[in-house]
């Protein structure tokens, strides 16, 4: 889930959204439950990233070539409004036929019968990273065809490293190395910090917790791991970097986004996802000054969290069969190749990722692909946003230093467990 995807929902004009989304499937006479019908069908395909629209259009065109009777119309909604609009439209029975799905929402949609299982579409699950297939499997059924993925790496500013005479981070480095490097790079007089130890989940603590040997949510999505000493260690790792003065404070990072500090040379290292690469490559100020390294290893390794989007089909679509076909197609080999060539995201289909790595040869982007091997799945449950809200609320106090990490983790564990228990009751 990129920063674009971080704003899970925003208060948006729900009524207008519903109206906008009603413009869905066209010529529907008779329906087409049988599948390969030859009548003309128009599918609506909802996405949220404008940068990816050209690639999505190419994929839609490729599908139309194979199925001349099916036309796919793309509906672009900015991410901030995407989920509110989608939820409203689906509730009103006018959702898009095919749409992008992310980890935090998949179980909510799948468990409420919104999505059509894709099991009959022969999605080659062995050809996608295992964690992604797991992410989009609910109750033993595959509901989403993995579209792309992102893992986390450490971006560093070579100019700041050179100026401080510090060696670049390299594969095999540890938390201790990170702390030492960050301390050496910090120059308070110039307002330069070694690293941005921000309170970002996916980029920072969803990685450090498994690196310390803990987990955020149990594999069956029923138990929180926040009460464990390992999870505490994973949080303290970041808080300690701030305490040591090697990172801007939580307040500074609320005022100015960590990425902006990195881009303006005020922060030497930034953990961020593969989605950031293309932006850096296109930014003339820093394109040649930065590179990426693998995450430093904690007591249990240097795992990255993996997240990716999927294409899903609306169970209530007037053309379910075609919708399912397109969802699978838009994640297939040909579609993945189209995505890889644009360099915007790492396609999920194994074997097509190389094209993404090669699209920006000046960076060591292969580290992002290497990270898949040990990657841990993005933590989700049926109502993910309830406890991610608790994470944000409680951890912001921990990061600000007004709440001790141990006490905060205890609170968070209790709250998250209560939320998970409530999910089970429904």
């Amino acid at each position, binding site marked *: 889930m990129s920063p674009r995807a971080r704003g899970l929902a925003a208060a948006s004009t729900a009524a207008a959204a519903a109206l906008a989304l009603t413009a869905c499937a066209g010529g529907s006479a008779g329906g087409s439950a049988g599948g390969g019908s030859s009548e003309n069908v128009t599918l609506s395909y909802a996405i949220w990233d404008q940068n990816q629209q050209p690639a999505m259009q190419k994929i839609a065109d490729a599908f139309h070539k194979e199925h001349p009777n099916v036309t796919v119309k793309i509906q672009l909604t900015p991410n901030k409004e995407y989920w509110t609009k989608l939820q409203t439209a689906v509730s009103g029975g006018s959702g898009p036929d095919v749409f992008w799905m992310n980890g935090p929402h998949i179980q909510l949609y799948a468990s409420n019968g919104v999505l059509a299982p894709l099991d009959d579409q022969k999605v080659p699950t062995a050809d996608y990273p295992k964690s992604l297939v797991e992410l989009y499997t609910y109750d033993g059924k595959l509901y989403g065809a993995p579209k792309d993925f992102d893992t986390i790496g450490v971006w560093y500013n070579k100019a700041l490293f050179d100026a401080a005479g510090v060696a670049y981070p390299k594969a095999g480095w540890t938390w201790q190395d990170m702390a030492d490097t960050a301390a050496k790079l910090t120059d308070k007089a110039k307002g330069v910090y070694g690293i941005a130890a921000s309170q970002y989940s996916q980029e920072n603590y969803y990685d450090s917790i498994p690196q310390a040997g803990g987990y955020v949510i149990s594999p069956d999505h029923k138990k929180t791991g926040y009460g464990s000493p390992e999870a505490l260690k994973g949080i303290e790792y970041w808080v300690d970097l701030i305490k040591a003065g090697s990172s801007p404070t939580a*307040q500074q990072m609320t*005022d100015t986004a960590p990425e902006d500090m990195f881009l303006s040379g005020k922060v030497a290292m930034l953990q961020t996802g593969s989605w950031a690469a293309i932006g850096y490559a296109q930014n003339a100020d820093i394109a040649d000054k930065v590179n990426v390294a693998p995450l430093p290893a904690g007591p249990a390794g240097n795992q990255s969290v993996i997240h990716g989007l999927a294409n899903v089909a609306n169970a209530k679509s007037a053309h379910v069969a075609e919708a399912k076909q397109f969802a699978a197609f838009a994640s297939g080999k040909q579609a993945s190749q189209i995505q890889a060539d644009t360099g915007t995201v790492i396609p999920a289909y194994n074997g097509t990722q190389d094209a993404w790595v090669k699209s920006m040869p000046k960076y060591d982007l292969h580290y992002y692909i290497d990270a898949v091997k040990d990657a841990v799945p993005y933590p989700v449950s049926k109502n993910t946003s*309830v406890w991610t*809200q608790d994470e944000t609320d409680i951890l912001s106090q921990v*990061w600000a230093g007004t709440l001790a990490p141990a006490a905060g983790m205890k609170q968070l564990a209790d709250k998250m467990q209560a939320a998970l228990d409530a999910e089970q009751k429904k």
Partner: protein
Amino acid sequence: MTDLIAQRSSAPISELDRGRVHVRVPGSRRRGRGPRQSPLWAVLFIGPTAIGLLVFYLWPTIRTFTMSFTETGPFGGSTFVGLANYVRLFQDPELVGALVNTAEYTIIALVGIPIAIAIAALLNTTGLKGRGAYRTLYFIPVVTMPAAIALVWRMIYNGDYGILNQFLHLFGIEGKSWLTDPATALVAIAIVGIWAGLGTNIVIFLAGLQGIPDTILEAADLDGAGPVRKFFSITIPLLSPSIFFVSVVSVIGALQVFDLVYMMLGKSNPAIPDTRTIVYLFYEAGFIDNQRGYAAAIAFLLLIIILVLTVIQFRLQKKWVHYE
């Protein structure tokens, strides 16, 4: 302070006014044409507003009310749960904080009223050069998008690079991160709220000021009242209907504050517990936690609070509002 008015407003001037009104109204009635008296016309004119009110206000209010007694699924469908949402609401530890924060914000926001009166009075002084330009300047924030306002003020308040701190630095004052410090965040937001609302209030007060008959002020001059005495003994009391209107609207607006808090603070702001307002609580419940029924209960509580405060204001107005 009321005796001056009492003397003047019951004097011949107002009788004369009343007389004029009397003469005019029957005259125009007599000439009224047929269609005006037909109820069809009335319906036609009221229709658009009435339909809007019905569809966008009344119906949602009823729906919210019924929804507050249900537990709703994330994609529609609901079960009746009686008063459970309200019981939970009054046990919610975040409710007290939200009520306190909202009350604080409302009180600070009311400071905007005297400021607006002062500016309106200055803009109303005769012989002021560039009056139109000033009026436009003060009104610009009103027609600016709240999102843009939030964005710019975030930059101004920025702890490291904000222009406010650079300004304070000139005087040797070390600023801080205004929006992330729990002690200042709410005040910082309220200042923006006051600034953004100033234009509307000034326009209302200007209209009020211009409605004060010169004759009364001239009479006060003859009685030997100075400008300060005139302002407090004549202008303010005669402006009281406008002040009353603005304060009612301001209180309602302040109680509903959400956009500024949401856009200026960002999600992981450590000051959130000290700035979370009632509508923010509503947003979290309804749009993040997917608990529409509970959110509806919060919305209804807010409606009741607004209703009660507005009724109190209307009761109190008898004590201080003077209608000429």
